[in-house]
């Protein structure tokens, strides 16, 4: 199968191409020629090639709508946004557990490695974390936790649920560790919008957060 077809099929299925889920395809997509051909392939179907990250070398590629003139497309957008809305709270709850258990500033950033053994060790040692894990079962995405036997089983099911949704991939076939995919970047984009639209308090040190900074230029 050609690279072009592989890319088009993934994108038209609603998939994301990032260095962690499809490293080869992502590398190929950084080649301008392939990206242009993919864009041309999507256009007749009313889709455009959307990117997350640096424009020159995007972290993640996915298909967006060329316009929202068609009522069907507007309806699809509404259902996509509903889906996205329903993912945010469960993901934030999982991130809260994950960062507390890890004891650091981790937050399911694309490329981050989620260590099963480290997480379960922290959860087993702290009943609060175990309760937070059990509480995740209240979300539709994590409903399979409710029938888990123990904490280990629950964590395994939670991570599998995130894998099934495409937010994680296994680090390798034998590993119990997972790597966060570029799809999480899509969720962060929605969070950006939420913060801007609802005028939620700006993060601290806003001036430090400019995408380009020249402090190290000599």
């Amino acid at each position, binding site marked *: 199968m050609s690279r072009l077809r592989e890319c088009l099929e993934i994108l038209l299925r609603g998939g994301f191409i990032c260095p962690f889920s499809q490293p080869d395809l992502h590398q190929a997509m950084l080649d301008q020629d392939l990206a242009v051909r993919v864009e041309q392939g999507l256009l007749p179907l009313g889709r455009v090639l*959307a990117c997350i990250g640096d424009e020159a070398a995007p972290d993640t590629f996915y*298909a967006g709508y060329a316009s929202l003139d068609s009522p069907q497309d507007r309806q699809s957008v509404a259902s996509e946004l509903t889906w996205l809305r329903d993912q945010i709270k469960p993901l934030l709850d999982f*991130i809260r557990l994950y960062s507390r258990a890890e004891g650091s500033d981790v*937050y399911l*950033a694309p490329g981050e490695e989620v260590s099963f053994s480290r997480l379960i060790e922290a959860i087993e040692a702290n009943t609060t974390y175990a309760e937070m894990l059990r509480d995740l079962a209240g979300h539709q995405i994590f409903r399979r936790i409710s029938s888990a036997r123990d904490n280990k089983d629950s964590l395994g099911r939670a991570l599998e649920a995130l894998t099934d949704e495409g937010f994680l991939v296994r680090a390798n076939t034998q590993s119990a560790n997972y790597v966060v995919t570029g799809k999480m970047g899509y969720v962060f*984009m929605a969070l950006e919008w939420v913060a801007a639209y609802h005028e939620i308090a700006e*993060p601290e040190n806003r001036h430090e957060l400019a995408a380009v900074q020249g402090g190290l230029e000599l």
Partner: protein
Amino acid sequence: MKAEDWKRLGQSVAANAELLELLANSDELGITTQEKGQKKLLSWLIAKNLIDVDDGVYSLSSLMLDLGAQISMTGFERAALDLEESIIAITNLCESYGSARDSGSVDRMARVEKKLSLRLRQIIKAIRSEIVSTRMFVEAGFNFSNSLSDQLREIRHVADRLVHIHDRLSLFTYESLSPLCHDDRTLHRVIVKFFLSALSKQRAQLHDLISRLNKLSVAVRKRKRQRQLILVVDAWLDSGNILDLLPMQDAKTYSGNIRAQNISLSAHAVAGHTDADYVAQLESIIASLPLPKERILRDVAQRQEGEYSLVPDVELEQEEEVPPFAEPHLIAMLEAYKQAQAPQSAVDYWLLNGHPEDDLKVWLCALDNYLLVLQSEVKNTGGKLNFSIVPEELPMSRYSANQYITDIWICSEHALDQPRVRAMHC
């Protein structure tokens, strides 16, 4: 430090004396694995950072260079890491070399040249070590610290170090060092050709490192921003706010970024293809399809005893057919008619046979219904009743469509005019 360690150092140095000499006399690039030959006890020296290994290239550490110079040269002082002092030392050595050359002392010239070479190599070595350690730090992705703020602080620290190195390197330019050579070919070779060219390579590496550090800094800042974003949105949701993303589709900056939903990509296998390859592949796929699932019907006679039967053995319970209520009475009336050859009244039959008078209306109604059914059945089979039914009716009411029947007479079709004699009821 224990005596054992000193012994180990002595043994390692003795075992690798030739290699150490080779390394001490090599240029600033060091020597590769193939050139080094002797390997005995070398790993210990490497483990103790007395010999540096970078991409398979071996070179003496700054400490070993100092040690080598200390034990082989009289009057050698350890080079200060302060590069400002180093440039003063280089200037002095150049002047010493000039005076030795003027006095015609070849030995002194060689000694000074050696000292100058070592001093310059130490400078290169010190800068290179700084760059290597910083590069390792950058390549490790700042995973030493869990906190993003700490990572940013570390980046700032590394950046300060790099800026400091860069400032110090600016002391060593062609303009500043070239006059020290006084047009001497040897000094020009050592200072300009060797030292400045090596320094320019270090400078290029430094710039590359700064660029990488810059990217890393941007990445960490972006992570920090996303982390803070998560915290504020999480807190906002926890305070009871309701999340609604639907207005997002009307926001110009975001509407184009919403992911398009899945499009079905199914296709039909047979679509008028005439391509021989396609048809051949299709045939092979069809040939490889699993056989359709069929229920194997074995001969019932061959079934083993006790095996389930296709038709249940249980006889269906059939309910005995109950004849209509009026049927036996009608038959009795017809028998009576046959014997008497005179029209038979249903009312007479009912009362003469001792049935209660109260049920008379029920009997007439039942008989009437039964006769209607009988007539329609016979009509459906193309025949007709072999007797006639003559109802006695009251005149039609003006206010109702119901016909009130007072009696039903059974008689022959040919004897409709026969007088109907009602029995006298007591």
